[in-house]
């Protein structure tokens, strides 16, 4: 009984941690520009695919990972520079549509470069699963959780302790005021895209040994990440993490205890419920209208 519960919990937390990382990427960009970046899933895909293909070319694993993360970061900057920045006066909705276009574009390129097959990435450490009270834990899950935790802590420190982090926060709170005190908001925006690309690619890399990776893996994982961000409340870092874990655990529990047929239905009705009673999500900021 306990082992069963633990098994579902492990499954849920692992996948939930991935959702959380993707949701954090959404949050970062949303905070700095109020844009929901639907190309977030593609960063995830770039991370995984670039690592796999470079490793296949004989590049050592660690180097391949670093290069893949850098590639994703460059892509994030390019996305902001060439797609978002030229349309700076446009509505948020227009910008969101631009990100959708960008994601289709990136996916198309990836399909041409890497083909349509699924690829495997070896586990970072041992292939042997770990047994805890009768439940089995993939060693890679520990990596996902560990890397996720480190990234969350790093982000918190970045936003509270560094000047650049504070500049991003300032821009998110009031763009005009930030500009007046000398913050280069375009620069901040670029930084936000780069950071969220880095986050996405790291998530894509640590989770690839579990899920496999292919040119279109970003669609569904990106969507789930967005859902997690919405549950937690768009714009809230804590919300993204809680939303991601919650979504993962609810999915796994309903697959295990109710029926795998209803897994997605349960997850999505949860979103409906949360948004119904708390329209701004679990941790969403309260908006106070000034009169």
């Amino acid at each position: 009984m306990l082992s069963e519960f633990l098994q579902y919990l492990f499954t849920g937390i692992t996948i939930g941690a991935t959702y959380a990382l993707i949701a954090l990427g959404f949050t970062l960009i949303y905070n700095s520009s109020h844009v929901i970046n639907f190309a977030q899933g593609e960063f995830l895909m770039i991370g995984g695919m670039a690592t796999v293909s470079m490793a296949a070319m004989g590049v050592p694993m660690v180097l391949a990972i670093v290069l893949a993360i850098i590639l994703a970061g460059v892509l994030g900057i390019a996305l902001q520079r060439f797609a978002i920045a030229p349309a700076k006066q446009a509505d948020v909705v227009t910008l969101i549509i631009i990100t959708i276009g960008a994601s289709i574009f990136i996916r198309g390129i990836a399909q041409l470069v890497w083909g349509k097959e699924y690829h495997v990435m070896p586990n970072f450490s041992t292939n042997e699963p770990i047994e805890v009270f009768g439940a089995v834990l993939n060693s890679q899950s520990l990596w996902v959780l560990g890397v996720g935790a480190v990234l969350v802590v790093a982000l918190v420190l970045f936003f509270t302790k560094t000047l650049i982090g504070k500049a991003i926060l300032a821009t998110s709170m009031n763009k005009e005021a930030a500009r007046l005190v000398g913050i280069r908001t375009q620069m901040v925006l670029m930084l936000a895209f780069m950071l969220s690309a880095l986050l996405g690619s790291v998530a894509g890399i640590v989770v690839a040994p579990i899920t496999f990776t292919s040119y279109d893996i970003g669609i569904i994982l990106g969507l789930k990440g967005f859902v997690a961000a919405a549950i937690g409340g768009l714009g809230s870092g804590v919300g993204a993490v809680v939303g991601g874990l919650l979504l993962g655990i609810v999915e796994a529990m309903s697959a295990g205890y109710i029926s795998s047929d209803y897994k997605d239905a349960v997850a999505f009705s949860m979103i409906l419920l949360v948004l119904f009673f708390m329209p701004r999500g679990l941790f969403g900021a309260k908006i106070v209208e000034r009169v």
Partner: protein
Amino acid sequence: MLKTMMRRAGKCAAVAAAALMMMSVQAAEPIKIGSFLSVTGPASFLGDPELKTLEMYIEKINEEGGVLGRQLELIHYDDVGNASSARNFASRLIRSDQVDIIVGGSTTGATMAAAPLIEQAQVPFISLAGAVVITTPVKKWVFKTPQSDRMAAERILSDMKDRGITKIGLISGTGGFGSSGRTQTLEVAGLLGIEVLADVTYSGSDTDMTAQLTNIRNTKGIEAVLNFGFGQGPAIVTRNYAQLGMGLPFYQSHGVASDSFLELAGSSAEGLRLPASPLLVPDSLPDSDPQKAVVQNYKSEYEARWGSKVSTFGAYAYDGLMLAVRAIETAGSTEPEAVREALENIKGYVGVTGEFNMSPNDHNGLSADSFRILEVQNGEWKLIN
């Protein structure tokens, strides 16, 4: 009176002469083979090798002098895996291209969308898609080359029975392939007296099936597990299965019978069994096997021409084309009814997929034995029987 009769007779003669002339012109004209395949899009892994196979063998047949002294001409459209464009292209093939026979339809969806139209136009149609509904009940003008999922279920479950397994757990994908496979498995299991104690599913985009497998593991009395699914899902199931240390005999369906599955699943696939085309193990077939030469030839020709690995799906197109050619040769013309009848009476054609014995009640012509049971041993396919 006489005059009008004369005039009529004259008209008749003129029409007959014109018809004769047209026929002689037609004799030199190429035989048009129409095709709509999912060459790009989500089902491109089906359509791509199918188109390559058709192109390559039509070229080859033409070099060797064609069929009935006429060259073959391939007219092909890409339906991108979309059933409604498949229907449009089928209509274009019939109306404006006026093809003599259609070999195509990569997916069951595309085939079923186009079938009513083709039936109505009365053009022989050889489908390359799997589901049992295509030829059951029999449609007059529709044939197909792949084995149906029902045969796969029969083959798997009877192999289980031979090993003394009577209680199984079933995990299947919710996609078309998985859910149809699930239905067939449940039906066949009932007939063979095998109990399905657990029946769980996963969706195509799921990235972890541990929860479902735990469910199966906790069901008492299960002696083997069968996964009916397609794409990367079964590879994840296989890995989770190994991680959980399930330890029971494990079966997959023909949906993942390819080398890329072995690559994805890695060492977790060790010991699992599945029904597959002999194309995966051409060299371990005994010399007495009539398919051995056909299979070896197709594999080496395809790989030499395209420089990529041969796939079972391309073989469906190979068999489709060869059946069409054989039927046209037997009929001695491309007259649709004659070709259809010839197709229906093909017996003992040994193809890559199996031996085809068509009949008016069976427009597939394969038996469950055309599947071979393979086991993964040391990371390679091994022929069991």
